[in-house]
């Protein structure tokens, strides 16, 4: 620590160059390791093609759900440059509310009715979940984030962690520790068999609904006046406000949109995993964040594709690498770390990266 400033500067640049070399070498090593592992272990197991296809389809379904949650992260990050750490919990609230709506519908016997009734009831359940999520998301913005909008960056993050814990443990106190299990109505509990590949109806429905919701969001953002306002605020908040955009309203709408998507994802994840509990939003939330980073945070199509890619990797990864499926969370986190090391702007680039560089 006694080197002169000039020397230290030189050392700093040397250090950076060395770091670059080091990360490159590390990257090459990881690629070789993965390829070696896949070819020697994963493919050597000799699973049939149908196994890979059904795993991939599973991955796409999960990816669709992650995409809906990831969009919430990306939307908020694009506008406020903050990570809404509690977004996973917003999703979980949607799932829990959806569960109770489902229970209500089942108690009323709507789930055994003719198929139009069931479809309407299911849609209603999803809307109720979305509404609950929107309520929580907007409250969160109002109470935990808005007062901190000018605070240093880490202060809202800590507040968000607090909010995330608060939501989780409030749900724990109200609804208990044990998981609530979704009972699928008979209409959607079966599946489609194509040769050796089995596609559950719920999976197909989830994927279709996710895509529809994503298209709707894309339409809102690209084609409506509101979307234009959102893009303007994301680009430059102060200029947008000078142009007559109500920045606060746009931020609230952003939270509403993100939370609505998360609520839908929560309900659908409930049907897919069949259980929800107080902490069932946490890991999917982290994974959706990973997906958002994978696609380049702030980049809306990036989040969608990033999520689908993450879903695929998570579904295929363990079998391809020949490791137990308990490690699928490890794969997701490792992927997050690797992306941030090698390509911090994500696969498709941060939309706003040049502005903030």
């Amino acid at each position: 620590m006694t080197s002169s400033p000039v020397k230290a500067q030189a050392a700093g640049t040397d250090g950076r160059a060395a770091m670059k070399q080091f990360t490159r070498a590390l990257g090459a090593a990881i690629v070789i390791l993965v390829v070696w592992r896949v070819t020697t272990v994963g493919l050597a197991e000799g699973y049939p093609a149908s196994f890979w296809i059904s795993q991939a389809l599973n991955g796409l379904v999960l990816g669709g759900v992650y995409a809906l949650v990831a969009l919430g992260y990306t939307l908020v990050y694009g506008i406020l440059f903050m990570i809404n750490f509690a977004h996973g919990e917003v999703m979980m609230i949607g799932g829990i509310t959806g569960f109770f709506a489902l229970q209500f519908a089942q108690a009323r016997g709507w789930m055994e009715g003719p198929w139009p009734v069931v479809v309407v009831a299911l849609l209603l359940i999803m809307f109720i979940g979305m509404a609950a999520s929107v309520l929580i998301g907007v409250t969160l913005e109002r109470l935990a984030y808005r007062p901190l909008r000018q605070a240093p960056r880490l202060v809202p993050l800590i507040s968000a962690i607090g909010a995330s814990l608060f939501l989780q443990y409030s749900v724990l106190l109200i609804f208990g520790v044990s998981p609530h299990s979704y009972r699928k109505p008979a209409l959607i509990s079966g599946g489609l068999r194509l040769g050796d590949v089995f596609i559950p109806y719920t999976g197909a429905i989830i994927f279709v609904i996710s895509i529809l919701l994503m298209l709707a969001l894309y339409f809102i953002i690209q084609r409506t006046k509101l979307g234009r306002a959102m893009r303007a605020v994301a680009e430059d908040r102060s200029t947008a406000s000078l142009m007559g955009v109500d920045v606060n309203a746009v931020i609230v709408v952003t939270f509403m949109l993100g939370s609505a998507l998360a609520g839908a994802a929560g309900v659908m994840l409930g049907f897919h995993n069949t259980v929800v509990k107080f902490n069932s939003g946490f890991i999917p939330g982290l994974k959706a964040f990973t997906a958002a980073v994978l696609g380049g945070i702030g980049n809306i199509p990036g989040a969608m594709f990033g999520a689908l890619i993450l879903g695929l990797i998570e579904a295929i990864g363990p079998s391809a690498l020949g490791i137990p499926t308990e490690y699928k969370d490890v794969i997701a986190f490792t992927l997050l770390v690797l992306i941030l090391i090698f390509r911090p702007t994500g696969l498709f680039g941060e939309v706003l990266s040049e502005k903030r560089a």
Partner: protein
Amino acid sequence: MPLESATRAVRTGLIAFAFLSYLILIGIPGRIGGPALPVLALIAALFFWLILRRESIGQFRQVSGVGQDSSEGKPGWEIGPQAGANGSRVRELLPSRFGTPLVLKGLVSGVTTGLLVAIVSGIFATAMGNGVAIQPVLDKIVPLNIAALIGVSPGQIAQSDVSFIRFLVQVLLFAGAGILAALVAAAGRNEPAQNALTGRLSAHLSGPTIRSGGRFAGIALPFVLLVYIAWLGLPGVTAFGTNEGTVRLLLTLIATGSGLFALRLCRPGREKLVVAVLLGLGVVTMPFILDQFQNSVMGLVFIFVMMGLGLNIVVGYAGLLDLGYVAFFAIGAYTYAFLSAPFSSPYISSLLILLGISPESPLLGYWMALPVAMLTAAVGGVLLGIPVLRLRGDYLAIVTLGFGEIIRLFMLNLGELTNGPRGILEISQPALFGLTPVDVTFGLLSSQGWIFLLALVSSALVAFIANRLNGSRLGRAWFAMQEDEDVAEATGVHLVRTKLLAFAIGATFAGMAGQLYAARQINIFPENFSLFVSIDALALIIVGGIGSPAGIVLGALALKGLPEVLRGVDEYRIVTFAALLVIMMIVRPDGILPSPRRRIQLADPEEAVGDSDQETGEALADGDGGKEEDQ
């Protein structure tokens, strides 16, 4: 009624509801039973009164963060010129809003709260009346709560036998509370006289005699408490009847905390030195006079003090938000476990047999294992540090969080190495020259007391090292790096080395803490090392005051010690504490006992700009996204 006061009244109602829903959440109505609703209404009335009184005096204006437009400036209670952000100061100081009678305001607030309570209990009651089981297994607390709120029995709710009148009564009750509060506030409107009284009183209180007396009392308090605790420990002495152990624990926590304040009250120089030495002696006697339970709690508190001090180096000094700090804690604990447990895991045992060592006997004692655990943790710190060198603040937080989870998942799933969820059992206890202190002191020092003593000594050592580091060249480099990495680098701070040293030193302390924790627990399992350890450690330094060692001790006492006193309400700990975290960030982001030198440790350079230039607040708000590390 002008729109502005109407929205403010509604806002008051909303905040009151938020507080009430917290009380409902932690099950207060269910415990009170029948009179729950009037009690809640009274609490709401108290809250309304506080707000309305303030409005009627008109001296303070709430610029608190909750429900304020961001253009109005910094959160917090502000007086005087600052308050006139969107109105003249004169108007603020007028005795009241002449336009709106207080009663109307109170009514609006009350009706808002009442409606919300009615809606929430109505939704729950409808759901339960329609066969929805809120809690699958323990379907007890929620129905009791809701029933108490509505004023019926849980059975009636289950049969959906609740008349609409009940909800109307709720609304009316809260509306009444609002009116009551307004009437009381209006009655006390002749404030000047009272103000003069309290003003004189406070002037008197701050007079030189009283002040020095208070100072003396403050310094003496911890010693008095300590003597009382020791006296309580004598056989045959009881305090307040039955629950003596908890009372003593609470007193111990207060004594330790008040010791910190006593130090602050001292004049610098000889007085401070003498008091510090006496306090040190007093604290060291604690392990000898407390019993096993109290010692184990205090041991945990001081293990977390070590964690907090270590994390403080990473977060407080170097400004790197690390949410995966538990990883190093776990590494320290598992390293010691491998080295000292008779049978740690199949893999380790076979390795030992391969090396010709009997796996039955511990490999290394506590003291020999200490450098190993510290070194392993430090290596872990560097290994984590290298990949995240380039990451910015919030990305760093998420990646470190991911690392923490990865370590836990490995511990859980690498059964061959770590024994998986079955954990590692019978970790040996620290000895002193081959003797156990319990034997040496003839049982005066319990085994947990010995751990507490070790934790005390270690955390004092860690605090000393951290303090020296803070003042050193390295500490200044950390501070510079935290302020602005680019400028720091330009002025000759070697960023890579400085960051890695922060991670390594922080990890070393966590490793020490982890080793002691393993010794304290005797058996360790992967679930001891969940994300919550990281969050607890982070929270205690934030609550206590980031960058300030005394604040960290205080934070640990409050967050790890108090929940043990409040046993039984432990399940509400996380909820309470999470809410506090949010409120703390809004109201007082620099902690209870902030470090004098670094007012805001988490600050970005933009903070200074935002402070000096309130008018352009909104325009500057995107400045927080402006500064990034170059990628």
